[in-house]
């Protein structure tokens, strides 16, 4: 199976080397999507032998992940994993999220920190996460314990769907609804994660009210849309 690791990176010069080294053993290609970084992120990634795609300016996390998804879809990969550039995700956990896709049991696998054996998160994030957990259960009938986790594996069908529909800002929770609504099999597995190496969350306290409103609205409306998945010929 041909697998691509997508690393969304914005000014991660301090972390990217360790992240790529961590990924060297996973046995697929490594793509760093450089979201208009103003530091040496792209140059370091290139020198480490990773594939690098650079946006001419900053698009945000959604657009960055989607660029990787489009690359994987257009270049015939069977699956892609999303692996954050800040060092939170661990290379030795990859097989846990890839295996269900490989066995054909899931189209979208989320690596979860809150399932037994996972990793603790901050209190604000925990509350937001619980609210989204309930919304997803109500809208899609699925119990996802850690819907904001960015450690994911996308199967071929999911790559096709998200190549077309993947929102620019705060896509993690909304895209679970998009996948479920189109009949894709969403699965969650417990994984281990690290604390951040450096940098801080993109969602500050001030932004979190807007974040909750935007994502809730997007989820409710997305659940009202019809089926949009187009099967590959």
């Amino acid at each position, binding site marked *: 199976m041909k697998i691509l690791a997508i690393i969304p990176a914005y000014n991660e010069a301090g972390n990217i080397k360790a992240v790529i080294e961590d990924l060297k053993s996973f046995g697929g290609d490594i793509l760093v999507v450089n979201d208009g970084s103003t530091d040496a992120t792209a140059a370091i990634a290139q020198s480490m032998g990773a594939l690098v795609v650079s946006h*001419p*300016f900053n698009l945000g996390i959604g657009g960055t992940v989607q660029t990787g998804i489009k690359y994987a879809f257009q270049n015939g990969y069977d699956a892609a994993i999303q692996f954050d550039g800040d060092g939170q995700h661990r290379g030795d956990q990859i097989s846990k999220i890839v295996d269900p896709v490989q066995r054909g049991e899931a189209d979208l696998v989320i690596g979860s920190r809150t399932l037994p054996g996972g990793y603790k998160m901050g209190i604000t994030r925990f509350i937001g996460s619980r609210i989204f957990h309930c919304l997803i259960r109500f809208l899609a009938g699925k119990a996802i314990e850690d819907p904001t986790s960015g450690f994911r594996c996308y199967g071929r069908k999911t790559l096709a769907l998200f190549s077309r529909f993947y*929102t620019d*800002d705060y896509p993690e929770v909304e895209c679970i609804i998009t996948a479920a609504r189109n009949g894709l099999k969403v699965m969650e597995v417990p994984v281990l994660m690290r604390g951040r190496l450096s940098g801080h969350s993109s969602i500050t306290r001030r932004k979190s009210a*807007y974040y909750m*409103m*935007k994502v809730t*609205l*997007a989820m409710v*409306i997305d659940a*009202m*849309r019809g089926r949009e998945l187009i099967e590959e010929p």
Partner: protein
Amino acid sequence: MDLTKLASLGISIGIFVFVLWLVRQRRLREKYAILWLCTSIFVIFLTASRRVLEVAALSVGIYYPPSLLFLVGVLFLLMVVIGQSVTLSRLSESNHNLAQEMALLKKKLEDLGGEQKEREKAEKV
């Protein structure tokens, strides 16, 4: 319920539903929809209780309550228009960068194609 109340209620609910419909059609982003949804909820709230407007107007020394509504409305629209101008500026900036980036990439591709042709020619000779 008098006719003005009914009309303003109808219009705000209409706008609310229209905005939701636009988002569902993917013609309006959630980011911008939130503003309009909040506005229509605010108007529905004002319609439901005229007392709120009267108390608010008198407390800031305005004796004709509807003028407070006009003032707030005009200021609000002003903020929205400034916000849109900022967005528009950002978009034209990125459009400008995209056009340049594309032109440079096109040139790079043409140069690569030319080099290849020359190499093939040299191999034939």
